[in-house]
């Protein structure tokens, strides 16, 4: 597993470029709002004081997702969009879209504004039910599953506009994610059963491990609303990962980031993929998408106009036309 000491030292123990902004930037001009709160020296909470085993990076990697069982083989399609059409009244937001997400890849979903990216995303994550066609995930049709059941089936997402639980600490936010795999309800919590106590420990173990994984372990006990913007984005990813997803869907995770933060985010996304997750990435930023994805699907006006490797997409005339428009003399 890729979670190793080096990464952690890069992410936490030094002032290496990270989502929290690197030193040069922080010192060279007015910092973006919220960044004034970053201490010069990162303050590392001693997690090992809580759980000594977290000092072992191998253990951290194991602890992050212990219960995940994926039926789909490596490289086989984990999610299949099968002729999905989505209509809102007379508006056709998605028109017969079919593509696969293969297990273990980072798939980019791009398109100009209004192309149907977010609709597509919402159809996949159960916010909308497709008008026609179906979404098959890990051998299951996501027909009538409720949204929380879809999460437990193994699809986790982040939000384009950050939607954390503001009044909760970072760790509690992640704990809500881990709770997706927990079963304690009112009687168990009331009488503090063994299962409840085990699950609470699991929430802390995995929660802290995930916060370390995304690089904000030292901010575990701060309220989510007090975190800087970049850390909030990271926290959203950690919270999504806490549900032990098979597929992680990121909705414009780099919105509002500067280039240094974007490159740190790319590293994080790769790290997540290397850890055995499949990632679907919706993004506007072409450089980020081209740099990090294995394969790209392009939507325009609700239709899929291209699918292929980043290099192919870069040279695809239809895609260029969709993004840049067609010169008058050619279209005439």
């Amino acid at each position, binding site marked *: 597993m890729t979670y190793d000491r080096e990464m952690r030292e890069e992410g936490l123990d030094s002032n290496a470029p990270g989502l929290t902004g690197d030193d040069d930037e922080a010192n060279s001009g007015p910092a973006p709002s919220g960044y*004034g*709160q*970053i*201490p*010069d*020296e990162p*303050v*590392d*909470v*001693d*997690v090992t004081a*809580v759980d000594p085993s977290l000092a072992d990076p191998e253990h951290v990697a194991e602890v992050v997702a212990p219960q995940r069982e994926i039926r789909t083989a490596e490289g086989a399609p984990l999610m299949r969009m099968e002729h999905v059409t989505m209509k809102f009244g007379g508006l056709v937001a998605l028109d017969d879209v079919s593509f696969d997400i293969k297990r273990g890849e980072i798939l980019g979903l791009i398109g100009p504004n209004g192309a149907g990216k977010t609709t597509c995303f919402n159809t996949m*994550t159960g*916010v909308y039910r497709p008008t026609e066609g179906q979404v098959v995930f890990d051998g299951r049709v996501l027909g009538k599953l*409720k*949204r*929380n059941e879809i*999460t*437990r089936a193994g699809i*986790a*997402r982040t*939000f384009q506009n950050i*939607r*954390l*639980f*503001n*009044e*909760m*600490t970072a*760790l*509690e936010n992640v*704990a*809500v*994610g881990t*709770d*997706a*795999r*927990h079963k*304690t*309800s*009112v009687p*168990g*919590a*009331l009488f*503090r059963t063994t299962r*409840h106590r085990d*699950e*609470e*420990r699991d*929430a*802390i173990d995995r929660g*802290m491990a995930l916060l370390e994984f995304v690089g904000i372990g*030292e901010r*575990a*006990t*701060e*309220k989510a609303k*007090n975190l800087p913007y970049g850390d909030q984005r990271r926290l959203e990813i950690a919270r*999504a990962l806490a*549900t032990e997803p098979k597929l992680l869907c990121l909705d414009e995770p780099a919105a509002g980031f500067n280039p240094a933060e974007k490159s740190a985010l790319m590293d994080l996304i790769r790290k997540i993929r290397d850890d055995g997750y499949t990632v679907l990435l919706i993004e506007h930023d072409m450089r980020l998408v081209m740099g990090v994805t294995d394969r790209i699907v392009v939507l325009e006006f609700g239709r899929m106009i291209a699918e292929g490797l980043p290099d192919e997409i870069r040279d695809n005339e239809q895609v260029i036309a969709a993004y840049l428009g067609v010169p008058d003399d050619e279209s005439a």
Partner: protein
Amino acid sequence: MSTPAAASGKPQARADQPKPAGGKEKIAIGDRFRLWWNSLSRPTQWAVGVPFIILLALLPVVRPPGISTVGTDFGGVMAQFGMIALIAIGLNVVVGQTGLLDLGYVGFYAVGAYTVGLLTSPDSPWNQTGDGGWLSAKWAWLAVLPIAVAITAISGLILGTPTLRLRGDYLAIVTLGFGEIVRLLADNLDTLTRGGQGLSQVAYPRLGESDTAMNGVFAAGYSNGGNINNGVWWFWLSLLLIVLVLLGVGNLERSRVGRSWVAIREDEDAAEIMGVPTFRFKLWAFVIGAGIGGLSGALYAGQVQFVVPTNFNVINSMLFLCAVVLGGQGNKLGVILGAFIVVYLPNYFLGRTEFLWWNINGNAIADYKYLFFGLALIVLMIFRPQGLIPVRQKLMTYGRQIWLAARGKRTKFDDNPAGSDKPGSTAAAEVSR
């Protein structure tokens, strides 16, 4: 939340540290209390909490002049406080923790009271205490108590199942209707509830019977000759129940259940997408809140031995809500303080002719209590919208260890001179707990 948080989130120091120059801003007393309480270790919290509860329990026995009420019996006022405090805790689960605005909470209070009334009052056709009934006169109230809680919880389930699909204002309207429906039913089902005449001679716990106290210490009119009357005994009973309910609610709060509630309050859609079965946990909150309300209603029915629909007006719902909002939504200790204010202040002024150095008409002030609570709420919303003791719930069973571990590091950071020119972080972190 922003006004006071921002005000107190500026550089400030803990009691043991010198305040940084130029950044001296007041920290509200509620925040200060919470910081102090959270800084205590668990055994110290018990060591402070238990004597405090004992002192509180002895308050109506000692009846310190200046604190005791003159117009009404202080023991009775404290008993009323105990019941409203229970209600506030129950309503806090629904409104403060889960963020469901319930304007008809008095309905559950009424269901609890009427369950006891219908099963134990000789006026009721369902009376079970007389000949052929399955309740012995001595233990009737105690036996009916769990039944009242269960039936109220079921009424919460019945109300919640269809209505919890609604959100925000719509839920508030439906619950408001529920409160009124319960009261109107009680008023109009003459054959069952005797309508406006009410049900009298409701059972109460017959404990401590002796030659001097024929009907036990909980009977109306009991007094030991000194300050200990039946009101004091009811206060002690409700205090015991409050402690038990607080332990239970605290356990729920520091678990998956409490986290789900707060997540629903913060962002219901995001919570559901993160795998929280929102409907199920909202229903649980409703049922638990209802059960606690029913418990309080049963206490009330036993204490006054008389239930009548006018005691369950919608205005009472508002008063309960006022206690929760005043004290601090989501904070268990805060809402108890809110309940105390709501019950104690009007009774304090009742019959008083002078306050400090003014001559006042205390009865008039008590009569206008809704006006004053309304004004107090408006002032509170402007200056301290999060309530007197604002929420900072601990949502993890072993969260305390983590918090202490993190805080240990934070303290180091506080002492770091390099950090002192960027003080926002620690101060904000400090207040955010």
